[in-house]
């Protein structure tokens, strides 16, 4: 019998703070053994999600955020700032540490291995996606998906966002891109470094269609079966606590 992963579609589209609280809840519970291996799909309306080591002041154009109604939230994993809107699909994989897919303590290996399902899903759709170390999925040197993750709480955690049909014009406005970052990429702006599934396929694509393709990609890549389920009551309690004490606070989101 195939291994089963729980498939969660818990999301708070207009509350990125609650979304990120759930994002931390799942690996904590999976690591402690109280929840099964899980993949979660979710959306945010327009939001900047900062990496846990980033400076909000240095990365975010707050005037542009105000103008475009973009919120700013910090995640618990490292990596760079990303822009989410309804045209962006988020996925998060939480496995108990020691899972045979990702043995050991090598975060680079986690990114590589746990991007495979997504790469496969995108290819099934017709996008020539490739994993690009350290943590990107690219199409012809343009980023279509970025990942981040951690190994902690006795769990292996990998999450990523996929630009399906996001508004790249807003993305270019709300994120400040440091000159030093672009220096070795031979391109001038964040607009030119990224692409969307829609642009690659030359047609409108829903995030649902991409999600279905990734579910299939994951089942093929890892030999698992995804079973739709809901959060446990224990998870709801922890998510609520993390929302109140961490993700709904500007001390966490903006102070660094």
């Amino acid at each position, binding site marked *: 019998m195939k291994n089963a992963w729980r498939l969660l579609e818990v999301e708070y589209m207009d509350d990125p703070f609650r979304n990120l609280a759930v994002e931390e809840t799942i690996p904590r519970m999976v690591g402690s053994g109280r929840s099964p291996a899980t993949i979660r799909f979710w959306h945010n309306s327009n939001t900047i999600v900062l990496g846990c080591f*980033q400076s909000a002041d240095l990365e975010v154009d707050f005037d542009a955020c105000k103008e475009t109604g973009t919120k700013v939230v910090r995640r618990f994993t490292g*990596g*760079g700032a990303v822009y989410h809107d309804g045209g962006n699909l988020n996925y998060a994989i939480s496995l108990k540490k020691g899972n045979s897919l990702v043995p050991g303590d090598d975060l680079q290996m986690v990114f590589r291995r746990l991007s495979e399902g997504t790469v496969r899903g995108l290819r099934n759709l017709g996008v020539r996606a490739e994993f690009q170390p*350290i943590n990107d999925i690219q199409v012809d040197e343009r980023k279509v998906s970025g990942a981040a993750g*951690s*190994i*902690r709480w006795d769990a292996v955690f990998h999450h990523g966002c996929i630009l399906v049909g996001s508004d790249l014009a807003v993305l270019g406005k709300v994120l400040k891109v440091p000159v030093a*970052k672009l220096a070795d990429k031979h391109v001038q702006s964040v607009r030119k470094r990224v692409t969307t599934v829609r642009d690659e396929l030359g047609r409108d694509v829903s995030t649902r269609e991409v999600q279905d393709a990734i579910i299939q990609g994951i089942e093929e890549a890892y030999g698992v079966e995804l079973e739709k389920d809901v959060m446990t009551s224990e998870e709801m309690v922890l998510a609520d606590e993390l929302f109140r004490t961490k993700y709904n606070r500007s001390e966490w989101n903006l102070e660094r």
Partner: protein
Amino acid sequence: MLREVAHRRGRAGAAFNLTFVDQETRLVFRSGLLNEDETSSALDQVGHLTGIINRIKSDSSTEPLGLIECSFDKKSDRWQDFHGFTLSSEKRAYTFDDANFKWVRLGDSPVNVKLKSADYKADGGKLVRVRLTEQDGLVKSVDLSGDFFILPEENLEKLEKTLLGSRLQSSDLQSLINRFFETTGTRGLGVKPEDFVKALLLASEAPGQ
């Protein structure tokens, strides 16, 4: 006890460093370039200062100081700029306030504080962004940020704390940061210990505000 004498002599004058060592403390006098009169005055005063150094050292407001340094000011004809450093791993820095005859912890007074910043893109890796304040060549405060990965995540803040009071100098930073990564079991992805060293040095070279 006098341990080391180093001197240079040239047409413009002579310079010497004298190092006195007792059980706990190295006391270093750095004269800078002096002419003959200045040299003899400086040496006279060294004699006097080594006589009272125990009183200076024993100011009870500080932790034991492992190193005390000072330099000679030709204009005012006196040894000045007394700095003390603790031996503990945090290497706290003090400056001697001779008007009040006591040590003042550096960082407690806002004199000579410079705000500096730099962005450093690690080779094949991520961006390290440094914002620091420097006082007399030492790190007074430091914020490290960027799009790298560090495990465990909590250790970036610990690294920032470790850097407080350290000299913005390549070998000091290198050994401090390497030792931090080793002893704490910190692992980086997209960033290595030497990238933090390079970023900090780049910031230290930046014009201050």
